[in-house]
């Protein structure tokens, strides 16, 4: 066990965990922030996507010991994020979700995409969203909602 300091959604946090503990489980179990989901544990599904230093990152394979000083932003902060809020609203407007379990990760990937590429093409969308599985396969509406959000962010 070791003590780690991290910045999550702008707040300084301290946890005492095994250094191998992935960021995902620190968020979920130590910080009680369960919006970030466990789906596979091997970076294959994207349900655990968060922003680390502004980059969409799979938190399930990032040991807390390797996080360093990089700030972490999670789905819980998206309602207060100017792009995040627009993306969430587009998701609701387009009635994207079904089971909803993957959607935290989908939204985190979509927000990262739109922050870097405000007018994404279908290819941009497929590249940036390409690692996020939606087992319900709501992909058609995810694509529409990203385009809707991009329009509103113009």
């Amino acid at each position, binding site marked *: *066990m070791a003590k780690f300091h991290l910045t999550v959604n702008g707040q300084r946090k301290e946890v005492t*965990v*095994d250094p*191998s*503990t*992935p960021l995902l*489980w620190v968020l*979920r*179990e*130590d910080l*009680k*922030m*369960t*919006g970030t*989901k*466990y*789906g*596979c*544990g*091997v970076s*294959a*599904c994207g*349900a655990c996507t968060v922003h680390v230093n502004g980059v969409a990152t799979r938190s399930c394979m990032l040991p807390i010991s390797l996080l360093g000083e990089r700030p972490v932003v*999670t*789905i*819980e902060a*998206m*309602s207060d994020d100017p792009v995040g809020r627009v993306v*969430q609203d587009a*998701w*609701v407007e387009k*009635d*994207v*979700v*079904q*089971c*909803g*379990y*993957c*959607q*935290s990760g989908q*939204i985190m990937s979509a927000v990262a995409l739109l922050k870097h590429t405000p007018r994404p093409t*279908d290819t941009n*969308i*497929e590249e940036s*969203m*390409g*690692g*996020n*599985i*939606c*087992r*319900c*396969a*709501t*992909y*058609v*509406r*995810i*694509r529409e909602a990203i385009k809707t959000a991009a329009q509103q962010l113009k």
Partner: protein
Amino acid sequence: MTFKTTNADEPQLSRRNFLRVSATAAGGLLVALYLNPSATAQEGGPPRPQQKVYPPDAFVHIRQDGKIVIQVNRLEFGQGVQTALPMILADEMDADWSQVVAELAPAADVYRDPVFGIQMVGGSGSIAHSFQQYRELGAKTRAMLVIAAANRWNIAPDKCRTEQSVVHGPGGQSAKYAELATDAARVAVPASVRLKNPQEFRLVGKRTRRLDSRPKCDGSLKFGLDLDMPGMKVAVVAHPPVFGARVKSLDDKAARGVEGVREVFEIPLARGTGVAIVADKYWPAKQARGLLKIDWDFSGVERADSSRLREQYKQLSHTAGLKSVARGDAKAIDNIATANRIVAEFEFPYLAHSPMEPLNTTIRFDGKSAEAWAGSQFQTFDQMAIAEVLGLKPEQVTFHTEMAGGGFGRRAVTDSHVQREAAQIAKRLRGTPVKLIWSREDDIRGGYYRPMHVHRVEVGIGSDGMPSAWRHVVVGQSLLAGTPFAMMMKDGVDSSSVEGASDTHYNIPNQHVSVHHPTVNVPVLWWRSVGHTHTAYVMETLVDELATRAKVDPIEYRRKLLKPEAKKLLAALDLMDEKSAVWRRNLPKGHAAGFSCHESFGTGVACAVEVSIENKRPKVHRVTVAVDPGIAVNPLTIESQFQAGVGFGLSQLMAKGAITLKDGMVEQRNFDGYVPPYIVDAPVAVDVHIVPSAEAPSGCGEPPVPVISPAVVNALSRLTGKRYRSLPLVAV
């Protein structure tokens, strides 16, 4: 029928009352209106073990603040029933939709499916079975509110009208539902009520956004896996590498050395035995599991091998199985010249459901009673199983239905093996809540797959180009054998293996379908759309091949071959034809259209797809779907179910879309080996068209799935001239 205002503090009393009342009520319908001041405090936040969150005997609760809380009698796991059932009830009740709150009901007899008789989601039955039930509940609630208002105003109830949660009297009087709720609760439940004519619906039939979107988009919604409560521990189980193997010896020294690990112990499983690890958190539990040294006892355990099984199944398919259907002359096929016959063998692999939220169950057992939390499609069975393990009666287990991250059948398991594991652990941890988590690896390798199948079909073609004889042998494990549903089997035939073929809507004379049900040491389970996952593929690719041989347009051929009474399918086919006509005429070079139509769970579906080949894989550019589901309760959800459901169906075509076994062990571990569709694999656009109808509604959860794979490979066949009869689609 008697009626009682319930109080959340008297659960046992009200429960007994309810059980007595419901026993006499046809269909188990009962409305209870009650005022519960503590309800507000119970919204959101983690579950409070000491409080009874849901009184067991209510569907509608009108709160003093005007909120109308409607109990949903089944699991929400994406299908949208948590919005659609309240819509139905609120419509008949004339409730203000903006004030409606939906809750997933706990396990209780009152919430059993009115047709199946257990509390469950399956067979696309939620709307089909509860449409009438929720209409009557809404109408009776409304009638009682009206009587309460009429009594207050000393007028006849039929002088009143209702709108947006308000009763209006003829002299300009008005009273909000919330003001009337207490009085209404004292009114006898009317034995019968007038239901609305469909043209009076205000919510039913209207595109209505889901009630659960926002909390699913901001991370606040708690799924079963997200539960936390004071003192809770987390458990994982080391399962045997071959189904049914047992722990011979265990060295847990290293595992116990992991900081945060509390207990390591052997537990019985539904098949064989395993080792449970209980820790403060998931990560130490998982780390410790990796350090266990277990010698497994494989004696007497069959080690299934999917390659070997395939060969055995193929051999079996050359012999007649148990008779499912025998129409006309069985020998007719033998009298048709070989040149006029198609002989086709199809292979389908085991498929995992792999819902995004891994399987989990939380239980707290205090010795005399227990509380359980799970996203369950089978509350009745799961509650019973937990009770059995803990030595309790089912009613001593308070079973909360948690919102679930997908399921597709995986949370409807008759042996409740996950809940039994959780109960075994909770039994040892008496007094401590424990959350059992199945990792993704546990899920992919844990069995309960869509069974592997082989079909062998011989089709004789008549001089008119239509099938004149059809001999069809299906080989695959039975889903029902050995379960409480085994009584549904007839003469050894599990109809869920042949549904969609034996009961085809095509007019095929001399049709003979038989089935072999081998017994294999691999647990199997219904996978969204069940037998139709493979039968529709066989029927729709063969019919397409027949159309090609007859040089007839594939839509026209289907129209001709369908029985006139297949009204839903014909309507869907016509609508699909109309809506896809323009793009079908303007296909880019290298693109082809493919078609299929199939009815399942009472819903007729037809689809057209535009496909090209990119990187040796099918690229689905566009799908046009037409559906006849009877009355479309929530057209927005239906559109969404079909848009995504066809994407789910494409799982079958993924290159790595198969579970295989070697020497009894599953060869895939995670989403890197068993790969569901990603966004690039899904259709780019799907347009959904609903046939207008006044018929009773049928389901929309499963019917999208069967049509897509055959439509896509039918398009591929047009591009390559090849036929695709073996799944997964490894090469185009």
